[in-house]
């Protein structure tokens, strides 16, 4: 009996368990998922908690419910992987052997990595929304805040869901306008990138949306430390940005056991082949979802598209056949823009987000890089899609590889 061990029962790990259980014979393969908690969170929903649109209880379900029959779930913390012995050691020192290992333990915010960030002002005037607790506390803060200087800030890239800080900014602008207090809130978006977003066309579109909403943009800002007493961000090149309320996205890092096992890069991400997701160091280890170092968004859509190809590759690979379904880094992300509208972006390793229609050229119903109500409804319906179609690995009418059909290529980029 062979054993496939999946570390992490989040978006990527759950999809992998569902898809591979259907493909691998139950008499030949045992599949085990290890996760540290029983609760599966719908993470895209966290963005809406600070504005009271979702409550935390709307977004959590038992992890077991989304794993199929024939997959064991072990609730435990992972101490380390010992690749030489093909085994995983858990925190209680028990061991799980494997023939093949999938690392799908994602990424998490690390406020303690920036001096001054997790100090006295943490969750007083300094907040984050990438954890359920953090998003809820930020919601309480916003509900009683009477205005001032709101700084939205990214410590460093890459981060999970790189559009979320922009979405938070758009939603905050709409929220404060609705409360009749937008004129009492000064908003500044502070980023280590050289524009509102990473690639030129999207950066221009999204930068213009910040401008329309009277949000100042501070670029190339690499934070060195936070001064909690003076309430300032301080950059390595000695710029200082004062705040009354700081909403930061702390440094994101992969799981610590990845580092302890010698499997990670400087941010604990597992170096993999970007087309097959096979570890560069070990030929029976794959990394799926946010846990790998592939140069595309850390996003559920990437996990989804890559998993469709990975499923077939894995089945071939364990039979000694080549992996021929090559992933292109395809990502697509809804960007909620407030006032009942949203945008959608669609891109891959080589093609930046461009305007157009998706998934059907000319028809949509979604609009790429332009605001529409359809995009907003797409985003809101996605919660149902996530639990009912995505996690179980059901067929969706979307192609795993990115397509240029429906995209408008500008004559000149500048």
């Amino acid at each position: 009996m062979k054993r496939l061990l999946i570390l992490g029962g989040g978006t990527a790990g759950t999809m992998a368990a569902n898809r591979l259980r259907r493909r691998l014979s139950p008499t030949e393969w045992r599949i085990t998922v290890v996760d540290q908690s029983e609760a599966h969170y719908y993470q895209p929903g966290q963005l809406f908690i600070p504005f009271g649109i979702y409550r935390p209880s709307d977004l959590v379900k038992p992890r077991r419910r989304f794993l199929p029959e024939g997959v064991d779930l072990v609730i435990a913390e992972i101490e380390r992987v010992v690749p030489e012995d093909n085994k995983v050691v858990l925190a209680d020192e028990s061991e799980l052997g494997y023939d093949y290992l999938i690392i799908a333990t994602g990424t998490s915010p690390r406020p303690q990595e920036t001096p001054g960030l997790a100090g006295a002002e943490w969750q007083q005037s300094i907040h984050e929304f990438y954890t359920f607790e953090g998003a809820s506390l930020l919601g309480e803060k916003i509900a009683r805040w009477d205005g001032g200087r709101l700084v939205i800030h990214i410590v460093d890239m890459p981060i999970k869901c790189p559009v979320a800080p922009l979405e938070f900014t758009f939603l905050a602008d709409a929220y404060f306008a609705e409360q009749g207090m937008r004129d009492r809130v000064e908003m500044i978006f502070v980023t280590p990138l050289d524009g509102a977003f990473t690639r030129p066309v999207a950066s221009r579109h999204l930068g213009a949306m910040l401008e329309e909403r009277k949000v100042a943009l501070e670029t190339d800002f690499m934070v060195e430390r936070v001064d909690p007493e003076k309430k300032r961000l301080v950059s390595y090149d000695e710029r200082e940005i004062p705040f009354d309320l700081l909403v930061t996205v702390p440094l994101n890092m992969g799981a610590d056991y990845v580092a302890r096992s010698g499997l990670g890069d400087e941010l604990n991400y597992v170096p993999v082949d970007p087309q097959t997701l096979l570890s560069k160091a070990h030929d029976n280890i794959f990394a799926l979802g946010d846990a790998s170092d592939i140069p595309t968004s850390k996003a559920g859509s990437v996990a989804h598209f890559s998993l469709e190809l990975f499923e077939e590759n894995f089945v071939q690979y364990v039979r000694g056949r080549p992996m021929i379904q090559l992933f292109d880094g395809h990502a697509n992300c809804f960007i909620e823009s407030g006032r009942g509208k949203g945008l959608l972006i669609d891109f891959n390793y080589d093609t930046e987000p461009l305007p157009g229609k998706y998934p059907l050229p000319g028809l949509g119903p979604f609009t790429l890089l332009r605001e529409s109500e359809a995009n907003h409804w797409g985003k809101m319906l996605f919660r149902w899609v996530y639990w009912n179609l995505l996690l179980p690995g059901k067929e969706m009418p979307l192609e795993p590889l990115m397509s240029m059909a429906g995209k408008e290529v500008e004559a000149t980029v500048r």
Partner: protein
Amino acid sequence: MPVAAIKDRLVKVDEEGFLTDYDEWDEELAKVLASQIGIEMTEDHWRAIRFLRSDYKENGETPTLRRVSTVGGIPTKDLFTLFPKKPAKKMAYIAGLPKPRGCV
């Protein structure tokens, strides 16, 4: 692909002037590239540039500032002193490597 004449040599560059062929680079060329962006190379500059070159050769990606500091052992603060304002971009330019990928 555009070609630029740097001193007396022709090298392949992208539309922003970053070299596109790893092997067309040498330290003489780097000095010229550095002076074009107002940097005079010292031993501290070379340490960073040599790390970029060897790390790229090994991994096929231009290292980020964080990687130069954690793996290369040069504090980020020093990188901002050596290559003011946009150290990641300036180091890549001098090292003849692609601009670090803005990870989306």
